[in-house]
């Protein structure tokens, strides 16, 4: 029975790419299967806004 690692090395990875779309596109160009998820940090990383939004949204 193959280990998970052996399976991964033999079949190639399926990648989940979070955030910057160019990372996913670059892998797709190389024939890698990619699932892209649009994501960015809440409030663009603005800590004060993120804290406020916790209370309001």
């Amino acid at each position, binding site marked *: 029975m193959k280990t998970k690692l052996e399976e991964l090395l033999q079949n190639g990875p399926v990648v989940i790419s979070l955030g910057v779309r160019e990372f996913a596109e670059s892998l797709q160009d190389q024939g890698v299967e990619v699932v892209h998820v649009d994501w960015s940090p809440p409030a663009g990383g603005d800590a004060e806004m993120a804290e406020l*939004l916790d209370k309001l*949204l």
Partner: protein
Amino acid sequence: MAKDIKTRIETANAEAFRRMVAADPVLVDVAPAGDVIPGLTDKMVLHSGPPVDWQRMSGAQKGAVIGMLLFEGWARSKEEAIKLLEDGAITLEPNHHHQTVGPMAGTITRSMWVFVVENKAFGNRAYCRQVEGRQQFGDSSQEALQDLIRWHDTWAPALRAGLRQMGGLSLKPIIARALQMGDELHNRPHAASSLFANAMAVPMIEAGIPKEALISTLRYLAGHQLFFLGLSMAAAKATADPARGIEYSTVVTAMARNGTEFGIQVSGLEGEWFTALAPPVKGLFLPGYGEQDAGLDIGDSAITETVGWGGFVLGGAPGILSFVGGTPEEALSYSRDMRQITVSTSPEFLIPALGFEGTAVGIDVRKVVQTNIPPIIDTAMAHKNPGHPIIGAGLVRPPLDCFKRALIRFAEKYGLK
């Protein structure tokens, strides 16, 4: 406490959304501004955007204000007009403080005829001037003023006679049809302009308008593809105003620019402006003009985006891309993005290219800040200096700082800071 305020906000925003989609804008008159706009007094010029004084006004807006002083006969030359403005003899106030909106520099004085749109669902009225390609961009030449004079002397009175003959014109059916004909009702209101001309032609003939004025007005309507923008702006203002002043609502009720600052207003923070430096517009220039000539973002016309038209429905109006730039795929993604920052979608204004889904309505300040996605606006471009007609068109986003400032103020007002 925190949970309670979230519920209150959701309830308030649902009410703001309900009022916006329930709007029933009807063109009831075309009239001299001084007869109908509340608080518009003698020697007063209304302008687009948040409040701004003469010294801080953008070049295009200064040029347009000078044009209005010449149009009214308050000054006989540009120099005399500038002297009156520097001496403080002319009052300058935002259109939005008078239930009014205006394209680009947005200048309105008492003798300028305006559209009167009544929202029959709530009984409020809103006003907007006509759209043209010169004076509203800051050109105060005799040629530019000729268009205002023809509007005043011939075209506006003819439209008033036609409207009185027909007893008013409901705008909602025209808007709904135009959105399905490739319009976005901001820089591409071509279908709506044609539908309006169709609706007005027979009543104007029936009204017995003298032949010369009738032909001139019909020719004006038939040849003016952007005509309906003045009506979509008035309809949008009449739609947004009932959503003002709902306690706890974080829904945006106005987005407006004066070429110096971009400002937004928020339902639960009635009467306040949240401003930041107006951004540059990215787009395409008319021959003879380039980036070095462009002024910053200007005009009240973003009231169309405020109620979910304009840039929000670019996906359904790919024809406009030859004017503002971009690809059909980008246009579709802009429209989809707008759903992330709004309360819900319109049950009546449907976009075929988006699978007949409704337009995104009710910009929520919280969602804009959370997602870091500012609203998308398509717009014309004015020169940075006075004295020029339209120089191009493109796309622009409001500064996020407007929304962040509103959120901070909201937290203060409602006891969270």
